[in-house]
Structure formats: structure tokens, C-alpha cells
């Protein structure tokens, strides 16, 4: 009477087999590997050709490899020892990046699972370990959206000025005031002309009138909500792309760069120990701005005396004299497509060659044509502080979008500046608001600690259950082991990040999961105590306990889901494992244990007694 239909047994068997297969890769450990991925956003990696090149490069260098694996974004080769791995890295680096100044590929050291390739081919991978277990750096960066908005409005101010001039609309000044751009007119007729010109050219601005006096009428322009949203989205995307490029310079094997919330970016660099360098590269939130220098006589002296004229800012030129720079931005780094270090053709000085996009080239041509003989300043804005990289005199109109900056630079500085500019200037400044570094020894220790807690806790529970409930307790322990197996398999399959709190959740889930089996076993005892036959007691025990198990698991799950929704970092790691564990425990505690009990007792015609430990009846003593 206690028999599962064949399909149910098969299904449970298949699920357990699946669990076993996907748990397997976790036992193999890791081997050294070298990973090749694209260093440029524009360069798509062709897995097949890269694989061939990689194999050739290793063959020429005479280095044995243990297999090459390719996926959409990277190609990895495994090696027998770290010694071979290091030699291979050099060989691959030479083959893939002949020009070390401008690498097209990131060649990084990595660790790969040592599991056989048939497991890898069905995507059975080991669990994805979090930074607290493998060591590395975690950053949370906040994008300065108000800063980005202010910058955008400054650019708008310049655009409007150009527009008014092109359309022959006479205005009495255009300024940014807070989050608005104010356009002044002498009379309403000009204002109407101005309004029409603006509305014809852009939909991003919302216009409102303000009349302060008969001859001082104004248009107040604000960015529409839609435009602001687009700007925010663009700023964060641009920053993420830029971070990708910068981190590629670090040569990290598996960096994680993700948006978190509306204005934050998470950067995780597993295995990176040199935090200072990582931070240096990330923290260089440099933006490039081209502005005009105000060389009007007397103004500079006035500014140095502490009275900076309206619409200008005082800066120090790199290693040079102070300089008065207009606030209005001619060009920003967004218009920059490339920056390369090099040398001036005539003076042989170190120089940086910039390439601008079409719009940038046009603006640059116009500006240089109108300002021959004047100076323009190229500013690098880092964390809100500007530095004038150079302030060259414009000798002639510069068309075609190719610009060269030279003067007072060493070769190393030119390299530095080019790298910063090339890596893309960020759309909006960013600030590190959270940092977590875990050394490799602590990571390994955390794994051992987590593993030991789970192991010894499990052993203790298994011993107690078997002693207390005999055969039924043993079956419960097997079901608990099945739960662990399925949980690990599920985590491996989902590649959910396992952290130390995650391991703690695993242990805790096991400790809680045994509840279901205790409930069942107690029910069976109770049924026996009330005089039910063994077979009936098993059936009734499982049936009656089911409702309770369901109710209690759902309440626990509610807490788990709340943690998942509102938790971040360690709490989230805990919650993921906790929730998954509750689901697997329902399966194993009810179905797996029942299947085993059915195999043991279900087929027998006559069962005299159940090995569930002593059944004490109130009437017996």
C-alpha cells in the first residue's frame, strides 16, 4: 500500500542524478589557466579564430596545454602548472598584443575548474564563489547625477548661444541658474523668435516666460523629465563602458561591472590584491573639457587678488602659471573618439594626438577659426577639481577633427594623459562609496570554516537522528544529504554567488530542514501509539505532517524573500541560499524520504513493526 508509482520513483531518481552531476564539478578543484578577452569595446571577440590563434601561439612557444575553452566573451586555456601558466601568458601576450602600447586583447591569469570537459560542456560548473571566499576587491561607485545635469546645462547654454547667433535672434545674455538656463531678451518679439528657434531645434527643453521688466523679458528653459531620464541612463551606461575599458587595462580575468539602483555601479575584481592601483585607475574619474582662456589684460591680476570675474574660473596650468578660464564649455570628452601618445612632428616633443567625432570636429573648427591668436585650455577634471593640462595658442583653424596637444609634457605624462582620455572620459563624475577587500588567505580560511561548520553540524544531526529514530532517522539523514546535494547543484547551475553568509545559510537551512522529518517521524510514532498498523501509520504520518510542513516552510520563505528583496551584499548572499534551501528541503524531506521508506516497507505484505525507535504508550508502565 505504501508504494509510489514508477514514474514518481523515476522522477525522484532523475532529480537526484541531476543533482549529483551538477554537484560533481565542485569536487574537482581548480587548475591554472590563461584567459584572453577583448580589450576594446569596439573589438568583438571571434571565439573560433581566437582559439586557433591561441593554439598556434602555444604550439610555436612549445607549451603544452590541457584544453582550450571558448565562450562568447573570452577564450581560456588550461595548464598543468602555474609555471607553464606564466610562460604561456608571456607567449600569448606577445602573439596577441604585438603593440604593447595599445593592447587589443586582455591576457589575464585565471583559475579554471579541473572538471572533465563533458561536465563543462553541459554547463555543469563549480559554484561561483563570492569575493569573501576567493579574495579580491569590491567597490560601489556613486555617479554624481546633479553634477552630470549641471554639465549638460552648461553645454546647453553654449548650444543656445550658437543657435541664437545662427538664427539671428538678438538676446541679452544666456546663463545657467541652478537647474535652469535663462535667456534674456530686450523685447517680446525677439523672445518669440527665440522660442521658435529653440523649439525647432530641440525637444529636450521646456520653456517658460518670465517678465521682470518691459525691457527685460526672459525665457526659462529646463530639461524635460524625459530628457533628464535619458541623460541619467546615458551617463550611467557611459560610465560603465568607461569602467570596462579602464579595468581591461588592469588585466582582471572575471571583472563584474553592474548597475545597481538608479545611480550606482558595482565593480568586483576577483583575485586583485593591488587595491591601490585598482582604485587609482577607477578613481581617476577624469573628464575632459575644452574651454577658452580669458586673456583680457588686468583680469588675471584681479582674479589672483581674490576677485574672480563673473563667468570665469582661476586654474593653475600643469606645472605653470595661473590662468583665467571661461566657465563656458566649448567641447567635452564625449566628443573624443581616440587619444594616442606620440611625438610632435616638428619639435619632437612628447604629444597627445586626439581624434574628435564629426560634431566635435565641427565645433572645434568653428571655435578655432573665430579665435585665432587666442588661447584655449584643455582641462582634466578629476573629482570636481580641474587641472589645465595645457593651454596652447590657436595658430590656425583646425579642421578634420585631428588635434595635437603638446608642450611641457614628458613621454610618461603623455602616455598617462592619453590613457586617461582614451579610456573615455566619464559622462559624470563618480565617487567610491563602499569598498571591500578580502585577502586570499582570509578567503581560503572562510571556505574551510564554512565547510567545517556545515560538515560537523550535519554529522551531529545525522548521528542523533539515527540514534533517536533508528531506521527512520537514518532515512531522514539520507534525505538531508539529498537536500544538501540538490542545494549545491542548484547553486552551481544558477551560478549564484556563494559567500560566507551563504554557507552559513546552507548550514542553517540544513538545521531547519530536519524539522520536516522530525514532524513526520513524530506523527508516525503517534499514529502507532494510537494503535494504527505500521503501513497505515506511515501513510497517515506523511499525509498529516504535510500541511504543517507546508505552512511552516512558507512562513520561513516569507522571511527569506523579504531578505532577498531588501538585502544587499552579505544579506542577499544569505537570502538566496536560504530561499533555495527551503525549496529543496521540501522536496527531499517529503519525497525522497518517503521513496526510501516505501522501498524498505512498502513492498512487504505484512509488516510487524517499524524501526522508528521505542514507542512508549501511556498504558505500558
Amino acid at each position, binding site marked *: 500500500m505504501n508504494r509510489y508509482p514508477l514514474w514518481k520513483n523515476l522522477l525522484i531518481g532523475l532529480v537526484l542524478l541531476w543533482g549529483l552531476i551538477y554537484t560533481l564539478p565542485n569536487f574537482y578543484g581548480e587548475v591554472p589557466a590563461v584567459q584572453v578577452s577583448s580589450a576594446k569595446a569596439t573589438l568583438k571577440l571571434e571565439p573560433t579564430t581566437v582559439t586557433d590563434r591561441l593554439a598556434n601561439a602555444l604550439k610555436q612557444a612549445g607549451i603544452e596545454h590541457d584544453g582550450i575553452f571558448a565562450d562568447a566573451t573570452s577564450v581560456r586555456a588550461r595548464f598543468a602548472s602555474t609555471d607553464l601558466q606564466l610562460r604561456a601568458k608571456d607567449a600569448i601576450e606577445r602573439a596577441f598584443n604585438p603593440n604593447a602600447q595599445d593592447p587589443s586583447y586582455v591576457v589575464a591569469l585565471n583559475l579554471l575548474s579541473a572538471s572533465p570537459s563533458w561536465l563543462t560542456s553541459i554547463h555543469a560548473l563549480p559554484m561561483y564563489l563570492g569575493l569573501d571566499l576567493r579574495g579580491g576587491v569590491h567597490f560601489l561607485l556613486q555617479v554624481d547625477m546633479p553634477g552630470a545635469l549641471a554639465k549638460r546645462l552648461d553645454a546647453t547654454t553654449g548650444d543656445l548661444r550658437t543657435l541664437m547667433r545662427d538664427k539671428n535672434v538678438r538676446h541679452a545674455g544666456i546663463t545657467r541658474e541652478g537647474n535652469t538656463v535663462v535667456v534674456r531678451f530686450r523685447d517680446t518679439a525677439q523672445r518669440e523668435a527665440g522660442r521658435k528657434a529653440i523649439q525647432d531645434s530641440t525637444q529636450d527643453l521646456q520653456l517658460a516666460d518670465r517678465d521682470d521688466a518691459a525691457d527685460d523679458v526672459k525665457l526659462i528653459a529646463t530639461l524635460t523629465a524625459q530628457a533628464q531620464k535619458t541623460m541619467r541612463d546615458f551617463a550611467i551606461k557611459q560610465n560603465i563602458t568607461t569602467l570596462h575599458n579602464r579595468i581591461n587595462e588592469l588585466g582582471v580575468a572575471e571583472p563584474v561591472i553592474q548597475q545597481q539602483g538608479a545611480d550606482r555601479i558595482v565593480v568586483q575584481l576577483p583575485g586583485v590584491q593591488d587595491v591601490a592601483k585598482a582604485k587609482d585607475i577607477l578613481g581617476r574619474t577624469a573628464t575632459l573639457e575644452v574651454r577658452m582662456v580669458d586673456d583680457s589684460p588686468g583680469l588675471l591680476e584681479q582674479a589672483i587678488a581674490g576677485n574672480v570675474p563673473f563667468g570665469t574660473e582661476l586654474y593653475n596650468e600643469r606645472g605653470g602659471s595661473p590662468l583665467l578660464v571661461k566657465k563656458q564649455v566649448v567641447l567635452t570628452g564625449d566628443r573624443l573618439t581616440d587619444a594616442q601618445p606620440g611625438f610632435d612632428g616638428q619639435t619632437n616633443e612628447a604629444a597627445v594626438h586626439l581624434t574628435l567625432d564629426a560634431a566635435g570636429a565641427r565645433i572645434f573648427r568653428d571655435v578655432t577659426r573665430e579665435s585665432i591668436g587666442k588661447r584655449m585650455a584643455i582641462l582634466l577634471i578629476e573629482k570636481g577639481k580641474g587641472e589645465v593640462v595645457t593651454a596652447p595658442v590657436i595658430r590656425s583653424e583646425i579642421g578634420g577633427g585631428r588635434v595635437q596637444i603638446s608642450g611641457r609634457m614628458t613621454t610618461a605624462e603623455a602616455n598617462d594623459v592619453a590613457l586617461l582620455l582614451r579610456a573615455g572620459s566619464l559622462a559624470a563624475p563618480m565617487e567610491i562609496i563602499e569598498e571591500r577587500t578580502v585577502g586570499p588567505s582570509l578567503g581560503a580560511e572562510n571556505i574551510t570554516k564554512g565547510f567545517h561548520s556545515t560538515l560537523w553540524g550535519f554529522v551531529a544531526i545525522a548521528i542523533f537522528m539515527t540514534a533517536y529514530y533508528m531506521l527512520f532517522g537514518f532515512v531522514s539523514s539520507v534525505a538531508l544529504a539529498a537536500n544538501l546535494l540538490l542545494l549545491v547543484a542548484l547553486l552551481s547551475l544558477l551560478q549564484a554567488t556563494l559567500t560566507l553568509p551563504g554557507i552559513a545559510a546552507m548550514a542553517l537551512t540544513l538545521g531547519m530542514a530536519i524539522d520536516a522529518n522530525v514532524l513526520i517521524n513524530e506523527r508516525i510514532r503517534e499514529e502507532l501509539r494510537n494503535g494504527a498498523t505500521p503501513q497505515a501509520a506511515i501513510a497517515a504520518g506523511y499525509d498529516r505532517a504535510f500541511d504543517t510542513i507546508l505552512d511552516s516552510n512558507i512562513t520561513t520563505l516569507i522571511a527569506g524573500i*523579504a531578505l532577498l528583496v531588501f538585502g544587499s551584499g552579505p*544579506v542577499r548572499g544569505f537570502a538566496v541560499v536560504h530561499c533555495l534551501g527551503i525549496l529543496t528541503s521540501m522536496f527531499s524531506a517529503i519525497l525522497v524520504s518517503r521513496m526510501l521508506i516505501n522501498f524498505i516497507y512498502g513492498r512487504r505484505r505484512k509488516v510487524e513493526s517499524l524501526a522508528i525507535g521505542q514507542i512508549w504508550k501511556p498504558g505500558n508502565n
Partner: protein
Amino acid sequence: MEFFRIKKDIPFMRHALVFNVISFVTFLLAVFFLATRGLHLSVEFTGGTLVEVSYAEAPQLEPIRQALAAQGYPDAQVQNFGSARDLLVRLPNRDDLDTTGVSEKVMGTLKAVAGPAPELRRVEFVGPQVGKELASDGAMALLLVIVGIVVYLAIRFEWRFAVSAIIANLHDVIIILGFFAFFQWEFSLPVLAAVLAVLGYSVNESVVVFDRVRETFKKKRNLATPQVLDHAITSTISRTIITHGSTQVMVLSMLLFGGETLHYFAMALTIGICFGIYSSVLVASPLVMWLGASREQFVKPKKEKEEAVV
């Protein structure tokens, strides 16, 4: 083996008032300590910088403190962490501090101090804006758990059960926090996770008892509500003790093998489990009784047959 050989239902409800008074006093004490001492919040909540280093041999703390003070960190807390060879340096956030470079500067200072060379184990820097969010997210999570559990229990059982379960278990949460306030243990994110997990876990305990209550109401028509509760608690007590014992074994294993990181996590769970048993059984059940749970709420009245005589 059979630990629990109970002949008659234990009259728990006769002492209901005593249990609740004990629990109320503990609760008040917890609130008192929370109010007077406050929680020792970890760097995740307060914001600041934490650097953990390990030495080959135990370093002298005083020169390290002096070196850090000389570098402009007079408010640095330097203490041993776990063993004498491990060191924890904590720095609060200050407005005038260049936050991004702190950890490097601290490491540099530690390396410059004469004596054994430090090995970097862990750095945590949390900006001021993150900490506040974590606290509000934690509060939101707690709220969601409470609402979720009350709604679920109200649907599955009855509102009286839902309210009693949540009152009994929230007071567990306050008691755990009270312990953390009294001993000034560090309250970190994993501890918060543990507290919320305990909330789900001890409600689960009440659910098991309530399930029995519902069943007994349906089965035994001659019992009054207190007797029904006594019967339900008595017949589940064996399971209660064994389950919690097993969970506690696991938590104990974490306490023994889990190291410093899991220490307070396991501590919160231990307190939660002990008080969870007490409150969900001996506090929630009397509350149900006083709120006026009765058989009629579970047994649907039989429809009277209306036969028409033609």
C-alpha cells in the same frame, strides 16, 4: 529512545499569566538596554573604514596607535580580533577625510611601524550615504516579513492566530537586540539576516502548534479552548525540542568552527532559538486564548437541511 513520556496533557494554560509576565519583564529589560546602551553597529551601518591585518607574531598595540595618531587618525580604534596576532583598525568617517585613500594610508602606516610585517586580510570602507540606506532597508525587510506573515497566517488560520504569532515573535527580535545592546556585541549585516531568519523560524514554531490547535478543535468537541491549547502543545512538545535541538546543534557547530565572522551570526541564532521556543509556545498560545479563539472559527456550522413538504 523516547524522551517524552507524557501521560496527561500538561496544563500550560494554567500558568499562562506567569509565562507572559516573565516574557514581558524580559522584553522591558531588552527595551531598557536598547534605549540606554544602544546597539554597537558595525561599520556597514555607521559608515567608516575597517582594516583587518594579520601578523606572524603578536604586535604591540601602543606603537601602532601612536603611529596612526601621528598620521592624522587620532580617533582610530586598534584592537585584537580573534587572536593576538590579528588586528582590527576602525576609523569613523569624518567630513575632512579623503575617504578613498584611507585604507592605503592605514596599511602604509602599519607597515612603517617597527616589528613584524602585517598581512592585509580585509578592508571595508562604507561611505556615509550607504549606511543610512542599509538601516532603512533593514527596517523595510522587517516590515515586509511582519506583513507577509500576518497576512499568510490570517488566511490560513484566523486573524487572532496571526496577531498572537507576530506579537510573540517580534518580542523575540527585541530580546535578541536587547542582548546585543547589553553585551555591546557588534551588530552587523549577517546578524540582521540572522534576526530576520529567526523571525521566520520561530513563527514556523507557532504554526506547528496552531496547526495542532486547529486539528484538535475539529476532532475533540468536548474540550474547552485552554484544554485544546494544552493538548496541542503537549502533543507537539517532543517535536519542538528535537527540531530546535537539531537546529541548535548546527548553530553550535557554526559557533565552534565558523570563526569570528560567523560568531555573532550564530550568537543571534542561539538566542533566537531559545527564546523562539519559549515565546512561540508559551506566549503565543495564551495570546490566542485571550484574544478569544474558539471552535466555531474552525468548524463550519452544518447547513440545516431545508426540506419542503409539499
